[in-house]
């Protein structure tokens, strides 16, 4: 593994929530730039926590989380937004704003970080085009199918050219065909160099793509970490 290319490094990381739940237990992982990694495991094994540690929604109780050579545990509250501007996030429930059109939803991600009109007018159509939704730019989320909503969410995640995309069960609310389309889209994004870390339950997707698979155990440890892995153990 090329050390200079490591984009996510977790060193002996544990996360215990204030209510005593131990989500992650002394895990160490390296993820290289441009990788596509599945995080799998039964419900409650800390898949979401794994992603939240990367964008500093949560702070590790123990150990170090290093993103692009920066220890995110050392970031002050004012520095966290800078980290998040370099990451894209997508969720099972899409997290789109219902009262805004597709275009406005994507533009919103640029507006709130203080981007100018010209930058927005340049980036938003390109981002929508890359997910194949430029024709629906004036539609509201309620007028879209589940797969289309997730595409808008991906366009929003991509618009700021992130170094990593964190996907938390992005196909959880979608039918199998649409799930596969969304996964294909993420594979396309990955092929252009963006690192993708995707937490999922979806056995068929994991087995069909043959990417790296990190399996978390119910005690919060890493059960297995395989290149070109599959969804094992009937989890």
């Amino acid at each position, binding site marked *: 593994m090329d050390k200079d290319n490591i984009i996510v490094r977790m060193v002996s990381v544990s996360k215990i929530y204030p209510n005593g739940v131990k989500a992650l237990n002394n895990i160490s992982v390296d993820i290289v730039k441009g990788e596509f990694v599945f995080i799998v495991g039964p419900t409650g094994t800390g898949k979401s926590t794994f992603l939240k540690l990367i*964008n*500093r*929604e949560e*702070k590790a109780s123990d150990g170090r989380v290093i*993103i*692009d*050579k*920066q220890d*995110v545990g050392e*970031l*002050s*509250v*004012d*520095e*966290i*937004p*800078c*980290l*998040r*501007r*370099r*990451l894209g*996030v997508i969720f099972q429930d899409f*997290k789109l*704003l219902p*009262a805004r059109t597709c275009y406005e939803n994507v533009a*919103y*991600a640029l*507006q*709130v*970080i*203080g*981007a*100018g*009109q010209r930058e927005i007018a340049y980036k938003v159509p390109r981002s929508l085009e890359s997910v194949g939704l430029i024709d629906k730019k004036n539609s509201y989320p309620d007028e879209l199918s589940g797969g289309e909503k997730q595409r808008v969410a991906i366009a*929003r995640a991509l618009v*700021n050219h992130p170094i990593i995309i964190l996907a938390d069960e992005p196909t959880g609310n979608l039918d199998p065909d649409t799930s596969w389309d969304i996964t294909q889209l993420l594979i396309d994004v990955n092929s252009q160099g963006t690192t993708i870390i995707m937490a999922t339950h979806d056995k068929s997707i994991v087995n069909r793509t043959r990417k790296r698979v990190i399996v978390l155990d119910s005690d919060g440890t890493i059960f297995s970490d395989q290149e070109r892995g599959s969804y094992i153990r009937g989890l």
Partner: protein
Amino acid sequence: MIRRGAVISVDYSTLRFFFTEVYISIRRNLLMSIAASSTMMFSVLILGIFLLIISGLNFITRSFITQVDVIVFLKDGLSEKAIYELKNNLLSYPSVEAVHFVSKEEAFKRLEEKLGVGNLSGVRKNKLLNNIEVSVGNPEHIEEVASRAEKLSGVDHVKYGKDIVDVLIKFSRMVHLIGIAGIILITLITVIIVSNAVRLTIYARRKEIEIMQLVGATRWFIRWPFILEGLFYGFSGSAGSIILLIFICQLSSNFIFEKFPFLSMLPGVTPLMAIFLVFIGLSVGFLSSMISVGRFLKV
């Protein structure tokens, strides 16, 4: 590398974004916005009515106090020079504002007028004394002036409404104290009530806040539209309450002047009071938004 630098450059497009957000938020949550603004209006109105009562009481006590001056009665047979020196002596006290000599004859004339009888000539005019009326600027110094004047040669005795001055001064101090305590209390209660109303409008937009945080908006960037919204409620609410106050003053003054004509000089809503109420409204709006949005800001 991740660098620090989450500072917003407040340029035209950012400002436009803020104001558009405020406009959209108020329009989309119109009922809640009206509720927040009305809550603000009634809270500031209560503060305003309280201020009017306090300033009215203050005005009345002050005007009573200034009517009670020190009267220095002079011994009979003082020369004009002696009277002149006494006047100058009294005027040299720092707290004395003016002195006015009242001769026996003038005192008699005043008595006639006061009693409303035509001619009292021949009626024990010699019982009256020449006197000097002394106006004291600060009522709290009346007692000191009186006791000093009493010791001057040529002075027969000194009169002032000691009891009433004491009572009025105590009353005026109490009015001040209640005023300040009341303003602080009502303002605090207003912050609590209004911040709950504002929280409802922010709650309606918690998803926006969550997304803003996820895509890397700074905490201040997230706060500003809500603060502007709070300032808007503060301004519109306090402006509304001032209009209502002026209306209330107009209505009540007709009634009051009819019954108590001497109160016709009562100060109504002064420009200073209006500015104060707007300032309180804006401060409460700002604080309420800061408190409420803080509850929805995760790290």
